[in-house]
């Protein structure tokens, strides 16, 4: 990416085919990881069987397969893997957007109080029995998440609306809703319920079915489309809000749209799988080390790496302890943190 002194035009956009090749490779890797996730488990299923089962369902092929194998592949594991991928992509994308918008490397999808609100909503349904059986756990979590986001946004707007105000309002909101959750759990839950809540709070893909995928995948794709449309606006925030405005960005509109999009993505994911930490904070940084800070490349890279990471974490969570499934949030942090430490070390700045 250097300019020749002779007056060569600036050739910095990169050769399109190399980027296309990279994207294809990453998508292939994701597809391979998803098939691995479908094949690995308590009942191992050969990759060929997986491919046949998927072909039977999608292309109407008629391979001879045992009904049990086909059922496991289609009803349990594929939906779970696809949900993990959507979730990882959406969380990483949200993190990348918020880090740019708030100009804070510590910003993550939960910075706006969304996961805390979701846990309060979930607990209110699970333990207090709110919603009279109409509201599911996920529904309660989603409402809680949206409510928390609205409260935090109102507080941030009332306090002047700068990036630091949004973060401070988010901290206040998170603390409030976390306290509410703890209050409900300690005063109303029995031991069994408390364990269930704990499991949910750490994030779990157990019990995921196709309807969850039908919600999560479109949300992740729509969020990705909205983010890509605003990739250049996010670049313009590099030197702050005034600099972005001076470059012709309608700052308030862009901020509202993107904050809303991340809030919806995060709320949808949290309400399905609980608050899986680490992905939204760290994957964007890892992606930045790979493709640099320009959002036209960073956003797709974050989404892909997030999806890959989450599918892999799901596999690990199912096989690391025999006869037991770890909460995926434990795995993402337990394995993600050291991996990130290595990346940080390798990318250290020469002093």
């Amino acid at each position, binding site marked *: *990416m*250097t*300019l020749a*002194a002779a*007056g060569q*035009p*600036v050739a*910095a*956009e990169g050769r399109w085919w190399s980027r296309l090749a990279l994207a294809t490779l990453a998508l292939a890797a994701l597809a391979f990881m998803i098939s691995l996730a479908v094949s690995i488990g308590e009942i191992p299923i050969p990759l060929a069987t997986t491919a046949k089962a998927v072909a039977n369902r999608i292309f109407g092929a008629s391979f001879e397969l045992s009904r049990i194998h086909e059922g496991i592949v289609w009803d349990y594991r594929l939906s779970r893997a696809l949900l993990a991928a959507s979730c990882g992509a959406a969380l990483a994308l949200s993190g990348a957007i918020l880090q740019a918008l708030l*100009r804070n*490397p510590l910003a993550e999808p939960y910075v706006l109080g969304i996961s805390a609100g979701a846990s309060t909503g979930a607990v209110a349904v699970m333990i207090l029995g709110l919603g009279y059986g109409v509201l599911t756990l996920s529904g309660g979590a989603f409402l809680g998440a949206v409510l928390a986001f609205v409260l935090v946004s109102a507080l941030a707007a009332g306090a002047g609306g700068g990036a630091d105000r949004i973060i401070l309002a988010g901290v206040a909101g998170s603390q409030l809703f976390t306290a509410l959750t703890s209050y409900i759990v300690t005063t109303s839950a029995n031991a069994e319920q408390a364990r269930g809540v704990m499991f949910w709070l750490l994030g779990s893909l157990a019990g995921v079915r196709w309807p969850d995928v039908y919600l999560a995948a479109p949300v992740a794709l729509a969020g990705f489309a909205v983010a890509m*449309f*605003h*990739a*250049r*606006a996010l*670049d*313009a925030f*590099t*030197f*702050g809000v*005034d*600099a972005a*405005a*001076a*470059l*012709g*960005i*309608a700052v308030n509109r862009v901020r509202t749209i993107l904050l809303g999009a991340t809030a919806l993505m995060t709320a949808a994911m949290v309400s399905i799988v609980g608050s899986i930490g680490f992905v939204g904070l760290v994957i964007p940084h890892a992606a*930045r080390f790979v493709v*640099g*800070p*320009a959002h036209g490349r960073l956003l797709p890279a974050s989404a892909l790496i997030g999806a890959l990471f989450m599918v892999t974490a799901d596999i690990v969570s199912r096989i690391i302890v025999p006869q037991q499934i770890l909460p995926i949030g434990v795995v993402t942090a337990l394995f993600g943190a050291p991996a990130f430490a290595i990346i940080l070390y390798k990318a250290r*700045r020469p002093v």
Partner: protein
Amino acid sequence: MSISVHDVHWSAGGAMIVDGISIEVAPGSTLGLLGPNGSGKSSLLRLICRLRNVKSGVVSLGNTDIAAMSRLDIARRVAFVEQQATTDAQVTVLDVVRLGRTPHRGPLSPWGVADDAAVYAALCHVGMPGRAGQLWHTLSGGERQRVHIARALAQTPSELLLDEPTNHLDIQHQLEILGLVARLPVTSIVALHDLNLAAMFCDSLAVLHRGKVVAAGAPEDILTERLIAEVFGVRAHIERSAYHGRCHVQYRTL
């Protein structure tokens, strides 16, 4: 007129920061904005490119009231260089200068030949075409300022606003940057602290004091010992320099 400001007021936190300012800048000329800290220079610059909205009064570009222009139309015409804007992102010089093309590109339109040409010309203007790949955080203060100016030039503006562009720079870079701005074929408004540099490089000056213009005109007409005493509270002796022919302000100890 390229930029005209008519009876503009703006307040913040109950204090009147800009209190009825009117100025006119002819196309292609350079106006120096002088005044003590807090006199309203930065605020006025932000009002001119509508980063803040005027409370009353009119700012016009050409014959158009900027209140009627879209954010994008203003950015295609006016470039603004802030004081000491920086970033923690791992961006290169080229990344920063390319930001200047933002208002000229749609959200999905590809990078074009015109964009390349504008970026390359901007880098040449500030003498940094060979530094395009260098990382932002390895640049010195003067280099960062030059990159910001290159970013502004890549916007291909007809009006350029600079907020104390020579702050924290050594004398060589101060002269270089102001010389560059004075030579550019665009209308410029530069907020400055150094009266001698302002007299050397600006076609006209406007002196701000407590949000009002207290003097405006050619440097040799308005820089007087009395004005400097009233506005800046220091005693000065002013003479025509035998060396470069411009005003030369010499200060006396208090």
